């Protein structure tokens, strides 16, 4: 099943690390919060996406199925 990036908005504090680690899927809005492209994460990027999720300082970045 496709994996997509999701944000736990109640946890996200706009550190912005995710946009550096996964720039092809995540950019930052004018307040520093992640904007997600909504596209499935391709297999070749999955490892880096998981790393980005694990590296989020507040664990607000999620990979969800579907």
């Amino acid at each position: 099943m496709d994996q997509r990036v999701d944000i736990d908005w109640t946890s996200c504090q706009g550190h912005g690390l995710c946009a550096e680690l996964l720039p092809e899927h995540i950019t930052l809005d004018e307040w520093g919060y992640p904007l997600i492209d909504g596209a499935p994460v391709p297999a070749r990027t999955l490892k880096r996406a998981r790393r980005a999720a694990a590296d989020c300082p507040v664990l607000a970045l999620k990979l969800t199925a579907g």
Partner: protein
Amino acid sequence: MTATHLDLHMPPRLLAPAGTPADLATHEQRYGPLSYGDPAALLTTIAASGLTGRGGAAFPVHRKLTAVVEAARRTGRTPVVVANGAEGEPASRKDRTLLALSPHLVLDGLQVAARAVGAGEAHLAVEEGVSSVASAVAHRGDPVPVQVLRLPKRFLSGQASALAQFVGGAAALPAYQDPPVRERGVRRAPTLVQNVETLAHLALIARYGPDWFRSAGTPGQPGSALCTVHVPGRQPRVIEAPFGTPLHRVVPPHGMSAVLLGGYHGSWIPAAEAAQLSLEATTMGAGVLAALPADRCGLAETARVLRYLALQSAGQCGPCLNGLPRIAAAFQSLATPGPQGSTRTDVSRWSGLVEGRGACHHPDGTVRLVRSALTTFASELDAHARGLCTATDRTPLLPVPQET
């Protein structure tokens, strides 16, 4: 407040007649005994009725029940049911009116829902200040005991994940939900949250069957719904009307410039267009209809509501926390006649930035109101840009609670 029934082709189903609260004896005399059947038969009956949720989202009740049942089977956890009477919307009165007049219909429905999903506990969530329900609960010998919970009077308290948090002992704040509350809610149990009006309909469907339920409304949207109707110069009224009722019979269009359909998370519609519409589950939200007289300024009204909505943000999610106050402040400047600069563009951009980016739908509903106001009051916006407001009466119209 008066609870009345317009002459709309049907006798009222939910609200006790003459505005007199129905005690248990009166209730039983009016509706007859409550019969459940077994859970499988109940689910079939509910599916056949086509009942949808009356809390605003119009989600099919049968699908929610089935999701709870399946999650319970999968996880081995006993479901929890919550009757949602936390009517956070300041312009809505239908849930508290229903709870005041026909509490036993709601409590019957709560038992029906508990039976259908095999729940072990049931809760009735009401706003602080609603007093009569506890004694109604105490008069009954319900198979699944009901706890009455009092929620802080806030716009977002009735949001399903906030309610699940509160029942579980935390603050009534929206939470990130994946999986959804119906699969993992109160203390991780599959949790059915249904609006109190939905449960009242359920109590009648269990008694009289799906064909009776479908004898009101349209084939696509069966049944009736409670609406809170705001017409200038009159107290807000709670009425019961079948789906498909022409809107002009509920809100007379004479002398009106627009109608707010669906409350503060709903849409402004020009009066001429509203007169062509009918009552639809998908557009009426939780049933608030408010008429804007032609001598009032829709922009000023929207700005007041937006300020309230921005203050009601739980402040948990960055885009909502940053975007709503900016949108509200920008809209206030649009509501004031004078040069607008880039304000309209700013409002549109910020609306795009908050939409779909929160734990709950507060930003989405707020943006719906903003966009509909920009469209419906477009010519008034142009007048304001030229330094002119066409309204002659600037008295506030829509109810917004005092800031505390």
